[in-house]
């Protein structure tokens, strides 16, 4: 057991070092090497952090969804495995909230610099806000429900949230085609100049690696917490079993 955790520890450190290197390299590419954009100027460099983060923030909800489905499936059949799935679910939800928060914050700063407004209810920002809201509500449910049921209720909510994400996206798009409003920046859709690709790709790689690191680290923490809960529950039970001499 100790040897296994040793290997994990070393592998983890190696991954962290590689990730930080990738991010550092990507940041350098974004800030220094990538050419200045013709129309938007240097503010466009925010996109090298903003767009990869938004792309990744759409991935983690589905990790949460799959984990929740596995939890619901294993709940009665194999409770120990179900706990693993639950740990993945909460980690993915928290990472989703972190990534979508960053997407919103960087988007707002870019908008302020480029257009002078902090916010607009355009399709992309509104959808991202609703995604953020969905997973914050998931985290709130986990926090505020009574223990023993938290995991099942959260898994159920996760199913609803995951099904809702594409519906939210489509409905907001339709809303904005019916009532067009100024769009906050073309971003990746309007085509990236090949000279900007290295910076963009390296940022995607770097932040994806970081996301995986966060997911695994948070998963490890959740497993530790589960272990500690089980240990204290066991201690409590043993306490009641002590026979008075």
């Amino acid at each position, binding site marked *: 057991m100790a040897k296994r955790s040793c290997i994990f520890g070393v592998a983890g450190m190696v991954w962290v070092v590689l990730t930080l290197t990738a991010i550092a390299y990507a940041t350098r590419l974004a800030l220094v090497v990538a050419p200045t954009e013709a129309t938007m100027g240097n503010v466009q460099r925010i996109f090298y952090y903003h767009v990869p983060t938004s792309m990744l923030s759409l991935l983690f909800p589905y990790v949460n969804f799959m984990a929740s489905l596995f939890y619901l499936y294993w709940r009665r059949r194999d409770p120990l495995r179900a706990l693993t799935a639950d740990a993945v679910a909460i980690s993915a939800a928290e990472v989703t909230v972190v990534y979508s928060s960053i997407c919103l914050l960087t988007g707002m700063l870019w908008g302020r610099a480029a257009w002078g407004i902090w916010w607009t209810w355009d399709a992309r920002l509104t959808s991202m806000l609703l995604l953020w809201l969905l997973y914050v*509500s998931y985290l709130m449910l986990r926090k*505020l429900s009574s223990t023993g049921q938290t995991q099942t209720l959260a898994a159920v909510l996760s199913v*609803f949230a995951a099904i809702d994400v594409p519906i939210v996206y489509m*409905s907001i798009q*339709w809303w904005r085609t019916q009532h067009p409003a100024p769009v906050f920046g073309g971003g990746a859709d309007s085509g990236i100049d090949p000279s900007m690709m290295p910076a963009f790709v390296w940022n995607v790689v770097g932040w994806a690696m970081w996301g995986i690191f966060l997911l695994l680290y948070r998963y490890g923490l959740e497993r530790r917490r589960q272990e500690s809960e089980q240990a204290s529950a066991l201690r409590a039970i043993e306490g009641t079993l002590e026979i008075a001499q």
Partner: protein
Amino acid sequence: MSRVGSELRDELRALRSYFGHVICHLQKDLRLEWRSRESVVGMLFFALLVVIIFSLAFDPTAAVSRQIAGGILWVALLFASFTALNQSWTREQRNRVLEAHRMSPAPASALFLGKALANLLFVTLVELVLAPFFLIFYNLHALGQGWMLLAVLPLGTWALVCNGTFFAALSLRTRNRELMLPLIMVPVSLPALLGMMSATTAILTGESDPALWVRLLVAYNIIFTLVCLLLFETVLSAE
């Protein structure tokens, strides 16, 4: 052939008994509500107050009223339904009725469906009483196809009530029930809310086509009703 026939007959019998359960739960809720009438009356007054507050807040002209009345209607109904939804489940917690439900062999989704239908009737009743007030306070008359409101209102109400009943059952086991229900229900229901508000506004102002939103509401209702029916058993026996 006769084996297929008897299997078919068994299925039909099961289906009839399922709907029998649903009707049973529905009747129970209607009877309970009829005796106290607190849910419907409470909802009605709450919605009315919301309407009045918005009028004071915006003091709309006739043209502006048509733009905002759709949104105000659904906001009023949404907030009014929160109390009613929570109450419909606390009713089951008295005298440990919920435990009895959990232990009975009757399908759990029948309980959910019965309760959701009952809530649908209550909210529809509130809408019917509220509608004349709306027309009066905002001097409304629909510039678009008014008859489409007859489609939009039930669809929108079902979206609210179906998700609402489900999430009220979910939030029954949380530490702060009244806070949890809106917190988990509204984000999931946002596309439906957008749909009902946009459709109502489109019909009232006549400026755009509500058909798209009606289709969204239909699709949303089908998807989420199925999901609610499938997952209710899990929520009921969440221990």
